[in-house]
């Protein structure tokens, strides 16, 4: 019986040959179907990436190829005071914005995770700002923070405080920016919400049986089990914050006023590349930023083993 069934089958070697041919064909088709993406990646990503590394060693100006200058661009950056100013502004923003966005993001997500009627409406409301394009958002906040007849100073007036110049004030410009950036954290709130939903109810039931308070449950169940999501948002938040550009650029007409307090790293990079004909210099800045972000991300990943808890581990 068995032999009978085996008889029509081709010898093993033949099968293997056929299989490997099929595999080869599959691979070929696979590559073929992936080719638009592969070509796109190579042409629009890999090539510019590698060229920018090369350009960072030249005086390339977009219009002229420039000449090879070795590490001169990098050396000059180290003694460029505007570079350091834009760098420190960016660090300021990252240091304050990222933790605040995590704090408010988690807090909002917890609020929006409660069992209240009409919750989907509240969730929508908090998500809506992320749909506003960055430039429109900048213009909107310029009006809200308008020192003369903005809504914010208008409300402060009611309680007898003459508000500051906000975006026109060296002290308040960056806090203003952080405030308006926090307005757009809907995206991360959605991710936190998903993370919250992912936490098994079993833990809370067990906590209830043990008589844990709300605070204890948050501290010992919710937060630890939310750490993978926090970890993700931390990394993405840092990468995004280092690239802060559209809001300050729009609000200051590209100048970073007052007193360079709104001049961010990428803004200065852009100025060099597209205004001052120093694309080589700008490329060097881009690579420094890349290295910083890479190093920070690596550090967080390395560190994450200590504080990120995955469910089921």
């Amino acid at each position, binding site marked *: 019986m068995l032999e009978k069934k085996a008889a029509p089958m081709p010898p093993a070697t033949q099968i293997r040959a056929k299989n490997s041919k099929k595999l080869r064909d599959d691979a070929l088709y696979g590559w073929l179907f992936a080719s*638009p993406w592969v070509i796109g990646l190579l042409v629009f990503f890999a090539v510019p990436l590698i060229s920018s590394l090369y350009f960072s060693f030249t005086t390339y100006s*977009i219009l002229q190829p420039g000449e090879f200058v070795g590490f001169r661009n990098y050396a000059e950056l180290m003694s460029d*005071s505007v570079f350091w100013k834009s760098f420190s502004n960016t660090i300021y923003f990252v240091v304050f914005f990222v933790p605040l966005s995590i704090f408010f993001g988690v807090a909002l997500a917890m609020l929006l995770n409660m069992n209240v009627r009409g919750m989907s409406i509240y969730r929508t409301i908090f998500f809506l700002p992320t749909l506003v394009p960055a430039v429109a958002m900048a213009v909107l906040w310029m009006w809200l923070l*308008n020192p003369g007849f903005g809504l914010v100073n208008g409300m402060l007036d009611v309680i007898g405080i*003459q508000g500051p110049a906000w975006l026109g004030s060296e002290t308040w410009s960056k806090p203003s920016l952080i405030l308006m950036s926090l307005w757009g954290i809907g995206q991360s709130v959605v991710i936190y919400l998903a993370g919250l939903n992912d936490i098994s109810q079993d833990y809370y039931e067990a906590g209830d049986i043990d008589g844990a308070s709300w605070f204890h449950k948050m501290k010992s169940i919710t937060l630890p089990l939310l750490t993978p999501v926090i970890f993700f948002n931390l990394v993405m938040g840092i990468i995004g914050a280092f690239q802060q550009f559209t809001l300050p650029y729009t609000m200051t007409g590209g*100048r970073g006023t007052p007193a360079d307090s709104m001049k961010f790293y990428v803004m200065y990079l852009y100025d060099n590349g597209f205004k001052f004909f120093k694309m080589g210099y700008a490329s060097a800045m881009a690579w420094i930023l890349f290295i910083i972000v890479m190093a920070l991300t690596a550090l967080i990943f390395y560190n994450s083993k200590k504080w990120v808890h995955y469910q089921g581990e």
Partner: protein
Amino acid sequence: MKGIKKGAFLLAIFTLILSVALAGCGGNGNNSSGGDENQAAGGNAEISSNTADTGNAGGSGEKATITVWHAMTELTGEAMDAVVKAFEEKYPNIKVNSVYIAQQGEGKNEKLLAAIAGGNAPDVAYFDRFEVATWAAQGSLTDISGYAEASGVNADNFYPFAWEEANYEGKLYAMPTTTDARLVYYNKDHFKAAGLDPENPPSTIQELEEAAGKLTIKDGKRFKQIGFIPWYNQGWFYGWGWSFGGEFMDVEGNVTANDPKNVEALTWIANYAKKYNIEDIASFTDSQGTTTMDPFFTGQLSMQVSGPWTVPQAEKFNPDLNYGVFPMPTPTGDNYTTWSGGWATVMPKGSKNPEAAWEFMKFFSGEEGQEIFSKISGDFSINDRVNEKLGYKEHPIFKEFIKVLPVSHARPVMTQGSLYWNELANAVDLATRGEDPKALLDKVNENVTKALNQ
């Protein structure tokens, strides 16, 4: 047999995928083919504009389209439209596609840069004249000396400084269109209300400060009315530096941003900012708008540095405003000066219709185009005859500008003009925020010199 079939099948799939991918980049595909069409039409334009030169305008049925980029709105925008309309009437075989670009001039030309680098440049761009040398040095503008020579256009019809700014290393790269000058506008009613003589405006820096003090009405941290803000509107540092007797470049072409007189001027600005508290002034200036919301027109600002275009604007946005002008005060009350900028048209590298583009540039800078543009916009023409014809020399306000033109300065013609401009603007901003004026100008000097030597 089977192998061939399979190969054909694979080829068919690959073609299909590739065509889908290319369709994905449809935007580009269409653009480039559109460009080709333009180019084809450009060939015709060459012929037709040649015939136009021989006096057969409109003889050819083929239409060439040229794209013109500009950043003009409001009155200047209307003036531009009028010029385009007049040009199209005179040259029926050239169609002008006039495109508003939000950022162009005063050191902001990113879009134009990208367009030139990408080989997709407009045929003509309206361009801040002081940046012509910078851009010409980068090889991004078309040398139009040949066209100018063939059409008999030369320095004769232009103010010398305007012509100089349009040239770089002996070659012509731009056609000047407008010029201006800066004076202090003052609100005569405010002067009366504050007990100042409206017919005897300040002439020295000290008098200016005293008048500004009397004109300022402050309530807590808010200004109800502010006398003067040196850096507001057209109060760029070039004007103050020259008024204080400073220079920005010496005869050998060295940068002299930290000329002691310039330092004096910036110190005055810094002290002014301190006296009125910069944050409060920022609260005021950040709340202001333009056109009907312009603080000078709404009566919140008593004096401001501005150019001739404020006259038609005042007529449109606040016809009842009772105002006058006086020269930018100097420390001594004499040796008044000012500075003149202005715009030009340039032909970026990669212009697809150079012949037709040149016709437009020539028309715009010619007497006919100048008359139309200057009349509507209130910008002065670079042609003295046009200014005379439009009656600017008799106009009560304009004549003051014309009077100061002979002693007016022009920004240094240099390859780092844009950088110098941006650096000075930044220095003023930082000085008003309390940084040391001398150190700031030293730094400007260093940066611009370094860039020049590269």
